[in-house]
């Protein structure tokens, strides 16, 4: 869809990119997924790579990502998105391939696939949306759930002694030689959205170089799972999630790359 001009004598300067399907999403009000989807699709539009891009959707809240992202997509089994992406990229090495996964998918059931995919240096982008709960199934404890955090399966708060520690998988990923670019971002403020967009853009640019995996975490909110308003959840995220998962770059490509 081309941007309409001159609505009531004004220029439309911001509109939906045609890489994003014009439909209502199933995401809860205030959730970060919608913004993250849009940013990825904006980058694909701006780089003019829609015809060369294949996405992989996970199991979790973003299981229906292919309803919204107007690129060829595959829906993977729970946790297997990066294995599916490996299969695609290996037979279509000149295409852009990305996965879009949540914390349960990527950091619990898919831990093995995630680590080995990055360790092989598969030339793909992994977008990891971390909100500390299993949203789709109703707010259960995730590997990234914070100590003391109440979920439907940690009803009295996550007890480290019996339920284990939160998994900072992005730090693990940053230690792997196959990782080219590892960064942690968020999408809860305009400034954060701009940084996330820059990271996604860089990742797709790096993919042209065939130098390894790009991994972009988005620390996000889950108003429904956390039982908060969107505004409260974003505040809670800054106060509680950021100390455990601080935004910033964890691994940068070697200087002079590009």
């Amino acid at each position: 869809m081309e941007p309409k001009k001159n609505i009531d004598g004004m220029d439309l300067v911001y509109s939906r990119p045609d890489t994003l399907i014009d439909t209502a999403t199933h995401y809860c009000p205030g959730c970060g997924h919608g913004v993250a989807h849009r940013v990825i699709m904006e980058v694909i539009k701006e780089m003019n790579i829609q015809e060369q891009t294949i996405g992989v959707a996970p199991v979790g809240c973003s299981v229906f990502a292919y309803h919204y992202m107007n690129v060829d997509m595959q829906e993977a089994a729970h946790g297997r998105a990066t294995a599916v992406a490996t299969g695609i990229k290996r037979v279509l090495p000149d295409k852009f391939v990305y996965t879009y996964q949540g914390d349960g998918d990527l950091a619990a059931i898919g831990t093995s696939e995630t680590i080995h995919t990055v360790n092989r240096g598969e030339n793909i982008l992994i977008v990891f949306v971390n909100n500390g709960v299993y949203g789709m199934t109703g707010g259960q404890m995730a590997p990234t759930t914070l100590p003391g955090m109440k979920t439907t399966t940690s009803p009295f708060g996550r007890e480290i002694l019996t339920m284990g520690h939160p998994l900072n998988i992005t730090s693990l990923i940053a230690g792997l030689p196959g990782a080219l670019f590892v960064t942690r971002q968020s999408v809860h403020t305009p400034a954060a959205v701009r940084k996330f967009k820059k990271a996604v853009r860089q990742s797709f640019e790096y993919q042209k170089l065939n130098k390894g995996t790009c991994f972009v975490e988005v620390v996000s909110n889950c108003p429904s799972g956390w039982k908060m308003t969107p505004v409260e959840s974003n505040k809670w995220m800054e106060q509680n999630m950021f100390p455990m998962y601080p935004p910033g770059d964890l691994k940068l490509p070697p200087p002079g790359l590009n």
Partner: protein
Amino acid sequence: MKLDFPRSEPTLMKGNEAMAEAALRVGMDGYFGYPITPQSEVLEYLMIHGPKRGSVILQAESEVAAINMVYGAAGAGARVMITSSSPGISLMQEGLSYIASAQLPCLVANVQRGGPGLGTIQPAQSDYFQAVKGGGHGDYRLIVLAPSSVQEMSDFVVEGFRLAEEYRNPVMILTDGALGQMMESVQLPEQGCLAKHVPSWATRGKAPDRERNIITSLFIQPEKMEQINLELQAKYQRAQKEAAAETFRTDDAEIVLVAFGLASRICQKVVDLARERGIAAGLIRPITLFPYPTDVIAAIAERTQRFLVVEMNAGQMVEDVRLAVNGKRPVDFKGRMGGIIPTPEEILVEVERLMVPAEV
């Protein structure tokens, strides 16, 4: 079966290597594997010969990852193969269910070993149910081919890819450790003997003139999910015409042995031994295990006296033979388990017991 493709001069090869070489000759784009005895030669052979002939060969971190790489590559329109042995095939059942539901073509070989559990590395046929009845969750079937020679290990790679692509369904070569490890003379397929097309449904980047392609097995509306199931069932019905069996000395047979794969080779010997002793024995060898050659067995049930099913398991295919015979004749079973290969002599004892009346 369409086995009229051109083949090279005879050469001597292991069954596992013949499968691997046939796959390269038929233009396999990708292979994703994981080591497990007794099929690791496939991955080893392909790592030497595959990349320089333009095929992607990747050793995955697990069978779980490997089958999902197959899903991705098959969804991207590539001709893809995976092989493993029994415990590894169990790990792939989730992926196979997704591949069957998403209607992706791929070729899977199970070089069976004895189970259950970690079991043994000796040959067995105890994964028949898993291969033929679905294996993973949901109502789906694999098309299952049962080779009984190294020649068929090679031939069924060509036939397997043909069936997989024609029906958009995973095809399994159900073989065993003996056929995988044994060396025999084989005439391999000529390079490029199976035409290749880029499927219109593949995810290779959304062209401007079409809607985006989506590979998925998620159909959340029950009405849609039932529709997909109906499509699958109609496809399996269509595939019935591919059912194939070989018969040996059945015309005048009073007792007909039924066996597939390695067991059928032993039973061919049993038939000859029984005939030397005056027992009119014959053999039916199902070549496709799904679709099952029910008609061949039903027709012979009209004229023979009884059946003896011989398997290297506790009695799995015997259920399908009984369904085909439908109570018309007695159906007995002789099996060895746990990686034991039955001898012709011990099967002959069973044939004689059934056919020679005990002296009063």
